[in-house]
Structure formats: C-alpha cells, structure tokens
C-alpha cells in the first residue's frame, strides 16, 4: 500500500478527534536540532470546514481488537485498514515540519494486537523522532488504556502532552457501549501520568537539567450525546478532572452517528449546540472562577440550549447586579455576561487613569450587547429608553438580540470551540505581563 493511501485511511479516522491544541508547552530547540514548541500554539492552515490545522493528526494504525459501539474502527466494522511503520511516520512528520506545514505530531492509535504492542509502537515512533532526528517540535500521544505502566512512563519522557480518552462519562455507559474497556483501565494511566508530572516538577526544582515529563500536561475527550448522561454529570466529571487529576483540557465531542446499534441513541445530527454550551461552561470553570454547582443543579441538570451558561447564571442571580464597572473587582467583572478576560483586563487597566463611561468602554473594544443589562458606569445604566431589570424580560431581550443568525450558525460556533486554545494563549501572555 502506498504512503498516500495510508495517509488517507489513517487521517480519516483521526480527524474527528477534536484536540488540535498545540499550546501550553515550551520546548526549546537544541543546537543542530529541528523544531521547538511555541507556548502560544500556532495554526498552520484552515480546512474548508473552517477548522485549524496545527498538528499532523493521524493514527498509527486503525486495526483494532476492540468493538466499541460508537467507533468507526471497531473490529466488527468492515472498513479498509492500514498501519504505518514507525519509519514512515517519522519521515512524514519531519518533512512536513521542515516545510512549515505543521506544528508537530498528534499520534493516536486503535488497539492493534494488544495494548502493550500498540503502546510500544507509539513509543518507538516518538523516541526515534526525538533521539535520532533531534526533533523538538510538539508531540501529543494517546496513552492506550490497559498498556503497562513502564511503557506509559517511558513514553511520557518524549512527549509534550499525553491524553487518555475517557469517551464515555460514566461506568454504566462504558459497560453498555465499550464493554472491553473499564473505568479502571482508563483512570489508571491518567493517575500515572499525573503523578509523573508532579514528580517531575519536584525534580525540576532540584535539578534544572532534569528531563521533562509531559510538560504540556494531559488532556482527555468526552463524547456528548451517545449516552443518557446529562450536562451536570459531564461538567462535574470535568471539574474533578481539573481539580484532582490536574488535567489541562477536557475536550467535548458531539457524537457523530457511525452505526445503528440498539444501545446507541437514534440521532441523525450530532448535538453540536450542546457541545458548544459545554465548551462555554468548561471555559467558565477554568478561567472565570465558576464551579459546576453554580451553573447546573439536580433540578436543572442540562443547559438551556438557547442561552449561554453565563447569561443563564446571571439571570438566576440578578440580585448581584448591576455592577459598577469603575468599582467592581476583576473577578466580579468576569462574571458579567459579555465581558471576557480581555475586556475585564482592559477595564481594570483603563480605569486606573480615568473613570470610564459607556463611550470609553466602546473605545476599549468592549461589546455592550449583553453587558449593558448588568452594568452601570458612574452609577448610571446604559443610556437607552428602558433597560429591563427583571429576569424574564432580560432573558427575552438577550434572546431577541441573539437573533436568528446565531441559531443558524450553530455549527460554526461549535467549530470555533475546537481551537479556543488560541485565546488561551493570549490569556497566558497577559498573565506574564502582569495585567492580572
């Protein structure tokens, strides 16, 4: 089979894997070496569907011994199969990288022969890239559930990021759809990577020259809509992954129907809007100081698809509004619908030299469409005939102003969320410059 054919088969099943992020790691090039990892992440192209290409996202092989119901590569599915040799993969990566097509490699794999065998092949590929080709670009590798500790730890020494896909948000769902995987087989490698990272950080404190271990942290992916799990359950899971497992990112992937097994829901379109709301909520957890309990609860376990989670929260908590932009602290500003990290930083910086009014806010580039219902400037509301102050009419106004356009663009919105790391990069930078 020629290389082109392999690329076709092995990129096709990898493309739905949402994590395209190449940020969060900074690996310096060595003398005479090739590549480095830019902490801010770089997109190298955009496909006609509007998604960013950053990493060469590909499977080592799609031969699989497992039969997960939601997956195209399941053993019972009759599709063309292929496998790269580590050499082919390494050559492809280097040659693409040298031409500046890509930021690095995102290597995943189906489970071929056994978890250990697969993990060994992954390790071999990344080791060769680092050691023989002196490659210092970004590498993200999937850890295969069920592979031995030694192999996973060894791989961690060569890569920037590792991820174990949880895929299904609960043990019951796993039993139903991926009976050969268990919660334990997924959690174990995650714990291993986490302690590896912590241990490495301690070593780094003592010896600057200690080798790196997964410096870009670990991430995971959850499939949304293939099971009955509600948003609250998913968000709670993400929250504990961030808190207890120190994950860098959780990615959400709207379930794309690939088979009609009776255990799967009969849906035609992937729940993109739901995926989008989860990304927004996830954002609120990580950068805005919210916790899952504020956003959802047992009575309301799912997000309102029509309204973004922050606006939803604000309308339920109107007693904390309006806030005065010239006085409210940074974190209070962040909780105002329509005010993001950048806007809040600008407000804090701008008001150091003068009191801000609504015109100033506009000049600072702050969009008032949503914010105007929740803020005052110098004690006054936005100069408009009637600014409603009760929850129902505010909600109606917001929905009205969202207008139909947004709802038509659901797909577009959702795709945006596939590469929000670019924004995270800005955040990162402003942290360094001390604006916070």
């Amino acid at each position: 089979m020629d290389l082109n054919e392999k690329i076709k088969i092995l990129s096709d099943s990898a493309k739905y894997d949402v994590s395209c992020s190449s940020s969060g790691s900074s690996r310096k090039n060595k003398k005479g070496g090739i590549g480095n990892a830019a902490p801010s992440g770089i997109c190298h192209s955009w496909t006609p569907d509007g998604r960013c290409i950053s990493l060469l996202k590909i499977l080592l092989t799609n031969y699989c011994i497992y039969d997960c119901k939601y997956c195209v590569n399941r053993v019972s599915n009759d599709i063309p199969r292929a496998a790269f040799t580590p050499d082919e993969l390494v050559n492809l990566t280097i040659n693409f990288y040298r031409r500046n097509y890509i930021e690095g490699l995102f290597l995943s794999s189906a489970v071929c022969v056994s978890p250990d065998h697969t993990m060994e092949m992954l390790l071999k590929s990344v080791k060769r890239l680092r050691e023989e080709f002196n490659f210092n670009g970004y590498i993200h590798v999937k850890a295969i559930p069920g592979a031995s500790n030694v192999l996973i730890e060894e791989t961690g020494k060569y890569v920037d990021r590792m991820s174990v896909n949880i895929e299904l948000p609960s043990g019951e769902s796993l039993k139903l759809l991926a009976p050969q995987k268990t919660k334990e087989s997924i959690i174990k490698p995650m714990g291993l990577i986490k302690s590896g990272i912590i241990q490495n950080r301690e070593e780094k404190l003592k010896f600057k020259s200690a080798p790196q271990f997964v410096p870009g942290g670990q991430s995971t992916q959850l499939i949304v809509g293939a099971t009955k799990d509600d948003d609250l359950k998913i968000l709670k899971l993400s929250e504990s992954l961030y808190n207890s497992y120190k994950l860098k990112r959780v990615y959400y992937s709207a379930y794309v129907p690939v088979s009609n097994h009776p255990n799967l829901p009969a849906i035609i379109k992937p729940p993109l809007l739901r995926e989008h709301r989860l990304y927004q909520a996830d954002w609120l957890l990580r950068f805005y100081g919210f916790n899952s309990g504020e956003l959802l609860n047992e009575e309301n376990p799912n997000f309102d698809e029509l309204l973004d989670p922050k606006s939803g929260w604000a309308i339920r908590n109107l007693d904390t509004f309006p806030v005065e932009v010239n006085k409210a602290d940074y974190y209070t500003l962040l909780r105002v619908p329509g005010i993001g990290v950048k806007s809040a930083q600008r407000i804090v910086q701008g008001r150091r030299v003068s009191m801000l009014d609504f015109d100033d806010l506009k000049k600072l580039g702050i969009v008032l469409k949503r914010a105007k219902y929740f803020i005052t400037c110098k004690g006054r509301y936005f100069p408009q005939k009637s600014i409603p102050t009760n929850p129902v009419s505010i909600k109606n106004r917001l929905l009205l102003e969202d207008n139909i356009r947004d709802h038509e663009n659901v797909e577009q919105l959702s795709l945006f969320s596939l590469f929000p790391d670019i924004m995270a990069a800005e955040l990162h930078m402003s942290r360094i410059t001390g604006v916070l």
Partner: protein
Amino acid sequence: MPCYIYDGSFDGLLTAIYDAYYNKDFPEQIVSRDNFIDNFLITKVYIQTDEEKSKKVHDAILQKISRHAMSGIMYAYLSEHENAGIYILEYLRFGFKTGRIVDSYLADDRVNNINRLVTKVTREKHLLSGIIRFRLLQNNIYYAPIEPQYNTTCLLGKHFAERMSDQIFVIHDVKRSYGVFYDKNKWFMSDISIKEDIVFHENELFYQELWKHYFDYTTIKSRINPKLQSNHMPKRYWKYLIEMK
C-alpha cells in the same frame, strides 16, 4: 503646518521626531517618500536621516516611557499605514508627558491609534509564522515566498532561526523585494532580486502532494464553511499556499 517627508526607514522616522522637537515645530503629517502625494498647499520639509538623532529619540523613549512603547511604535511603523508617522508622533508627545503609564489610557485616541496598528501587525506576524510554506530547492535551501500586507517579514527571522536551526532558509517578501536569510548560524536581512530559475529538489513535489492530500482527507466534507475558512486565512495569502492550489 508643514509635512515631513522621510526616506521610509525607521531611523528616518525617528529623525523626523527629533527634528519636530528640536525645531518646536510639529508637523501635520509625517510620510515616507513613497507615500507622499504632493499638493500646492503643503509646505514640504525633507528629513535627512541621521542615526545619531534617531538613537537619541530611541534612548529617550526607553528612559522616559518604556520598552513596551518602543516596540509599539516599531510595530505601528511596520504597518505602513499612511498616518503611522503622525500617530507615532502624537503618541510619543503624550508619552513624554505622562511617562510609563501612557499605555493605560486605552480610551485615548493617541494611544488607541497605535494599539490598533500594533494589533494588525501582531496578528499578521502570528498568522504568517503558521502559513508560510518552505519549498526545498535543489541546492538544499528551504525557500518561502510571501507577500504580507504589512511589513512583517523582518519579524519572522527570529522565530524560524530558532525553530529550523539546522536548515538553510530564505523567506522572501516578493512585494518589498527583500528577505530574511538564515545560514544555520545567524539570520540577517538583505535585498533580493532573483534572476535564475527556481529549481525544486527531487523530493519536493512528492511531499507537496502528500500535504495536499492530507489537507483534503482531514476536511470534514459535511461541514464545509468557506467563509469561516477565509475569515481565519484571508484569500490574499492563498497565492503561496501549497494546499490552496
């Protein structure tokens, strides 16, 4: 009020700023020779680029304002915006009065004008660091032609010299006829006029084809959204993109 005309170099621009202060005669416009359009109402003052004057302005900015301000006006200059010269002068006058805190006046036009230009240039620089494409030539040089909207080519040298430290490369700004060169040791800028034909290395087309195929395979056909694509990657950059041909 006069119009200052400088030679288009950054030193020339800083000299103009120096002269404005020295003569206590603030111009209405500061434009580079290439951007200048004459009209009989204008009093023309030709600026003689003087590195000593330019260095004095440079040092004064670092001392009295900040390093951040220095890089801000540098980027504003690279935007080649027709008003960049006068915006920079207004910003510096404000900066020399207020000092380090000047960049907190985000709502002030004098600061805002500079920031808007800086954002444009920074964006393009970041975009280009991803979308320039090297072609391997027969003589083992990696060659990337580009035509940036702003004068950002010079900002790419450091990034690529660090990243591709073991390959000889040239990034060629075709529009402005200069380039960034790297010889595995250091990078530098120089004018370029290519006379001989460009000949690819024998493997070059093979990898170009693989890349085009990968690009095609990785597209999700059911979600085609060309508008979103060109929002991120405006059409004016497509000319030199292998995958867009």
